[in-house]
């Protein structure tokens, strides 16, 4: 199973700033290992952010994003105490979902 994310969410004025740190190899499929064999592509393909269960961000990621990536989002209409859920699915079908509370 994939490793947990680290999510921070805090109100700054009337905007909720969300920062997500994901643990993922993000292999491009272009690299070769020491034996010259291509390392298969393995990367996060879709990600969503939900606020109290309602999707507020949905997006696609690509192999050009770095290993262990950091994403930042600004969301309006949130308040402290709301529940933020971040989820991703990678190209091998592996997935992960984690939660945080807006500070």
């Amino acid at each position: 199973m994939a490793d947990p994310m680290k999510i921070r969410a805090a109100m700054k004025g009337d905007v909720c700033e969300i920062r997500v740190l994901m643990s993922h190899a993000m292999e491009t499929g272009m690299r070769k290992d020491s034996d010259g064999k291509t390392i298969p592509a393995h990367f996060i393909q879709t990600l969503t952010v939900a606020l109290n269960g309602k999707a507020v961000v949905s997006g696609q990621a690509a192999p050009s994003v770095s290993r262990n990536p950091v994403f930042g989002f600004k969301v309006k209409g949130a308040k402290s105490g709301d529940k933020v859920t971040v989820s991703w699915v990678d190209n091998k079908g592996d997935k992960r979902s984690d939660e945080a509370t807006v500070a």
Partner: protein
Amino acid sequence: MDHSPQKRMLVGALSTLGALGALTFSASALAQEIDHAKAAIEFEKFRAEMEDSNPSELFELKGEELWKAKRGPKNVSLAESCDLGQGIGKIEGAYVQMPRYFADADAVMDAERRIVWCMVEKQGFKFDDIAKKPFATDTFTPDATNLVTYVAAHSKNMKIAVPLKDPKVKEAWEIGKEMAAYRAGPYDFSCNTCHGTDGKRIRMQDLPNLATAAGAIKGVQGWPGYRMTGGIQLTHQWRMTDCFRQQRFPAPKYTSDAIAYLLTYMIGNANGQVYKGPGIKR
């Protein structure tokens, strides 16, 4: 969506460095020094920005799991068996008070050495298995690395306090000092050749003068740390081993006396200054 701020900022930093590079072609040697200082400051700003969402935290999370889980042939957790100098299972402030002397092992131990000792003595893991792959690669992070990161995070914003009053620790410091000055190998290098004077650098990397308090803290800050080059988590033990390589010395044994002595010297020289926790490196 705000795509990987890491990438965006890196492009910013690289173009800044690129512009400085172009300038120095036409400039005097003196101006080059000034531009280098500027570039170093710019890079430091970039690094500090990254620290805000530091991937070290991912390794800290894994380390926490490992610390609390019952593991190894003896099926015990480190939380219920490992004493890092503050009592069994206590990690608050432990990292900044190591290296220290441990009577049960009759040795001066830095944090990683002590954790590995606990994994072997308390959990029953085999040292040789751990030492086979002691440092992270891009597809593998050793348990000890995750554990050190977790422990180090619990010394964040605390003052470094290596117990140099303890005669055993003081002795280790003295040996470490000798080692730093010991010249040998094909280039007759010592640590001090590269790290014993102020203002030296190799390419863009400033080399801290480890004999001074100001230099020593630079050698402590940010370790264990996430290296942006390669995206892997590395420890102080790795840094020492890699500098042995740069010095063209044979590789030191993982968690050996030699490394503990050097770390005692270096971290001891940084005593009294605030450790900022696991960091991020270029």
